[in-house]
């Protein structure tokens, strides 16, 4: 009997042990499965935050970085990984209080968005969002330099555009008001009145030209201009333009030459638009030359035909040459030093849009301050 009891007890013990082992196995299996799942989730999360453009860091309430997508070098241009908010603050130095914003986001549990922070040569957008579960703050730093510069260019465009419209309007309104006042008060200085009316008239012409340029520019930029394809005689056009400017050149003591080295290959383009570009280059040459020479050369250039317009005028400083084809530029970087009496500063910009739309290009060939400039454009030859 005792033996039987002992055997039973032993069997029970063995069963107990076996079941325990089985349970442990099940638990181990569960743990293993869960670990794999967690790992998968973590790598998914890591993949997700890596895919975010911009630097993402999560900082806990003690100021320690607990998660990041490591894009420090991409966004901040640094080759180490800061581990606390204090270290991140050091990167910005005194220029931006990132630590202060982190504290506000943490204490007040609210989202903070700083849309344009200057950092080195860049502009950053910095977003702070409190993370409830970890009791920390998520900070997202994005590079918005391109957007910021575009915004500024647009603001500048509007500032200059309204300046260009306001100036002739001021002259028209002011001169007419003065004329009315003169006549009203019995003041009869006819010469003065004539001068004022002439200024009002010339300013209204200037205004019309500016509005025309603006509309042309906007249509060209949007690709809404239809270009004719007709046989264009560049030599004939160049001669026409030079004759149109003959009088003005005479009064400015400028002589001109036209050298036709063309093989007579046919160019198919929009005649009016080609003429617009030649007018732009010749009028610039005349505008910036006082007593000197304007020379036009037509010549073959590979598969293209090139027309060059040279002058012996004021020339362009090397550092300003890269601004030539920009909107509203007259080869000067500073908006404030634009010469508004010399046109809208849209001529070369429009010429480039026009010529490129016809398969050619327009460019500065060479320029030297005080000795003159050469501009050229090409158009493809039809085979």
């Amino acid at each position: 009997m005792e033996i039987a009891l002992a055997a039973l007890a032993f069997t029970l013990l063995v069963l107990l042990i076996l079941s325990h082992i089985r349970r442990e196995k099940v638990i181990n299996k569960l743990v293993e499965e869960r670990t794999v799942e967690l790992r998968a989730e973590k790598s998914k999360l890591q993949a997700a935050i890596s895919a975010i453009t911009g630097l993402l860091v999560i900082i806990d309430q003690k100021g320690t970085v607990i998660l990041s997508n490591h894009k420090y070098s991409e966004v901040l241009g640094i080759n180490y990984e800061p581990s606390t908010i204090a270290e991140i603050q050091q990167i910005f130095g005194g220029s931006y209080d990132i630590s202060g914003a982190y504290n506000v986001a943490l204490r007040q549990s609210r989202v903070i968005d700083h849309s344009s922070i200057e950092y080195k040569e860049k502009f950053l957008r910095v977003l702070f969002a409190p993370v409830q579960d970890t009791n920390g703050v998520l900070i997202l730093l994005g590079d918005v330099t391109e957007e910021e510069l575009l915004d500024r260019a647009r603001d500048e465009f509007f500032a200059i555009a309204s300046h260009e419209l306001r100036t002739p309007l001021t002259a028209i309104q002011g001169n007419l008001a003065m004329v009315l006042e003169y006549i009203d008060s019995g003041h009869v200085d006819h010469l003065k009145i004539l001068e004022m009316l002439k200024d009002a008239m010339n300013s209204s012409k200037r205004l019309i030209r500016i509005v025309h340029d603006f509309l042309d520019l906007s249509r060209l930029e949007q690709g809404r201009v239809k270009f004719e394809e007709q046989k264009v005689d560049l030599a004939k056009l160049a001669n026409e333009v030079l004759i149109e400017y003959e009088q003005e050149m005479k009064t400015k003591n400028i002589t001109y030459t036209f050298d036709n080295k063309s093989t007579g290959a046919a160019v198919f383009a929009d005649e009016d638009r080609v003429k617009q570009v030649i007018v732009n280059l010749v009028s610039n040459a005349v505008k910036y030359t006082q007593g000197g020479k304007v020379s036009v050369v037509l010549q073959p250039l590979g598969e293209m035909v090139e027309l060059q317009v040279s002058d012996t005028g004021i020339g362009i400083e090397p550092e300003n040459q890269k601004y030539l084809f920009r909107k509203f530029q007259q080869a000067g970087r500073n908006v404030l030093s634009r010469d508004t009496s010399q046109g809208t500063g849209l001529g070369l910009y429009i010429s480039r849009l026009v010529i490129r739309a016809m398969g050619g290009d327009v460019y500065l060939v060479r320029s030297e301050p005080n000795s003159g400039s050469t501009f050229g454009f090409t158009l493809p030859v039809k085979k």
Partner: protein
Amino acid sequence: MSNQAVIMIIDDDASMVRLYTNIFQVEGYNVVSASSGKEALEKLQQLTPTVILLDLMMPNMSGFDFLEQIRESEKTKDVPVIVLTNLATDDTQQEIQKYNVKKFLIKSDYMPKQILEEVQSVIPQTDK
């Protein structure tokens, strides 16, 4: 009708110079004009105007550059300047304040009579 005050007009746009010259000459003011900051600086060696009307957007030397120069010189550091421009950005308006500018006026917003009143308001009474 004659006034002691000398008004200096600095503007690269000839039509603007003619307009403002007319406005003040009719009222008997002495007008000195310059088509650039450089020309104005030269004229300032010979005379001290009662007030300067200054354009901002000018080639070679902008209105800012001009102000910077005259504010450094003992002789011209206190001459009243009225900025008269069509460049109406907030930045410009804000930045110009550091040069002790009396007024910042947008040309197209002012009729000749109003310009006259604005300028007269900064001329010391004894000069009128």
